[in-house]
């Protein structure tokens, strides 16, 4: 009898979630398509005036990407709870926080990464100047993992309740606001030719903190949610 080593367990969880996502790759594509729809509909809804679109492009892309991520957040643990897989995960002999970290990573890889990949396209559709796009991508690379991590904790907390949707939104909104402010601040600064490093640095620092704490919090929250 040999207990599984931690790296193997992490690999197993990550691989499982990625395989599942691949099996339902239509669902991964959902947030991306959703973001594309938004970017397509905006010119229709506002009229194709280039200066106006350019002015709002950075903000629209940021908001769209973050909202598309929120869409998928709710489902992070739902199917695992319903089919009993989460219980098996909790009872595994590995530290739960690490395993959950892997689940969060898988979630980020399958929802946020595709969005970041299409972000330049979205930005292009709304005529964002090309030199601002790297800053936009940097902001997204820092902001999206933070949302995945914090979102996971909150989703775990509400997992035991039936009325999760509203609560989740209520708790996420205040978290989104500062993230959007900093990210949009960096993009706007870049678009006006001003220095944009300070807001990006703040985002980075916040990300480092959540990276360590969020999986631990998520583990505690899930244990509480299952305990009934």
């Amino acid at each position, binding site marked *: 009898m040999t207990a599984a080593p931690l790296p193997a367990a992490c690999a197993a969880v990550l691989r499982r979630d990625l395989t599942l996502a691949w099996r339902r790759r239509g669902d991964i594509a959902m947030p991306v398509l959703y973001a594309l729809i938004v970017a397509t509909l905006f010119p229709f809804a506002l009229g194709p005036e280039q200066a106006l679109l350019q002015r709002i492009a950075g903000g629209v892309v940021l908001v769209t990407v973050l909202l598309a991520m929120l869409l998928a957040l709710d489902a992070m643990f739902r199917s695992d709870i319903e089919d009993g897989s989460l219980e098996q995960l909790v009872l595994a002999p590995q530290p739960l926080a690490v395993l959950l970290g892997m689940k969060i990573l898988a979630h980020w890889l399958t929802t946020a990464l595709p969005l970041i990949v299409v972000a330049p396209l979205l930005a292009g559709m709304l005529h964002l100047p090309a030199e601002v796009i790297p800053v936009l991508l940097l902001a997204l690379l820092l902001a999206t993992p933070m949302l995945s991590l914090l979102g996971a*904790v909150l989703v775990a*907390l*509400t997992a*035991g*309740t*039936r*009325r*999760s949707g*509203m*609560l989740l939104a*209520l*708790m996420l*909104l*205040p978290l989104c*606001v*500062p993230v959007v*402010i900093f990210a949009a601040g960096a993009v706007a600064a870049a678009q006006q030719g001003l220095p944009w490093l300070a807001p990006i640095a703040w985002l980075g620092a916040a990300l480092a903190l959540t990276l360590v704490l969020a999986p631990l*919090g998520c583990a*505690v*929250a899930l244990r*509480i*949610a299952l*305990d*009934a």
Partner: protein
Amino acid sequence: MSDWIPLWLHKLGSPPVFYRFAGALRPWMLALALLLGAVALYGGLVLAPADYQQGDAYRIIFIHVPSAWMSLFIYGVMAVASFIALVWRIKLAEVVAMESAPVGACFTFITLVTGSLWGKPMWGTWWTWDARLTSELVLLFLYLGVIGLYHAFEDRRQGARAAAFLAIVGIINVPIVHFSVNWWNTLHQGSTVRILGPSKMSGDMLWPLLTMMAATKFYYLASLFGRIRADLLAMESGKDWVRQIAAREEAR
């Protein structure tokens, strides 16, 4: 530390003991709160001189600042009680944490409203997304999240544990509210009142402020005790000591 803390907590944390203790103290707390509040308002609104810059508009400070302090203080109490509730699973701590939340939310709301009212003449706007204002708003959302989470669970104690966890996580926001004026340059006033060292405020204004602070503290305790007593009766409705109380009430 591992042994005597839980032992001691369990003793005071026993619902019947606390029920009696809170029942005896509550009227005194309430009386003190009203008395001190009246004195502070008299001192603030009548005795204190008008500000040389702001005229009389500044007098809203006597509501704004004490409730702002209370919004932070109560969050602290809630987080500590939550910690005790999660680690030692003491029912009373759960109740203290959960019943603090609505009171704290009220104080936070008052802070936001009085701040806005004051902001209009001072800064020419009801609201800006400045660091202190934003973080205070986040505090309100945290309180609401705790209350909502508590009530979203069917099992009260499970709900209390989940909400307690959220309260502990949210504690990071408290230093952000307090120090935001130092860390970022904001529209909002820096700290003027200091516990240690000399205050930047004149004594005429200071003493009503501090009195009001004491009054709000007593008010919080009184209302907390009242809520806890009601909650304990509901939660322990099957237990002997509650039945005895009910019997006594009937006898009267």
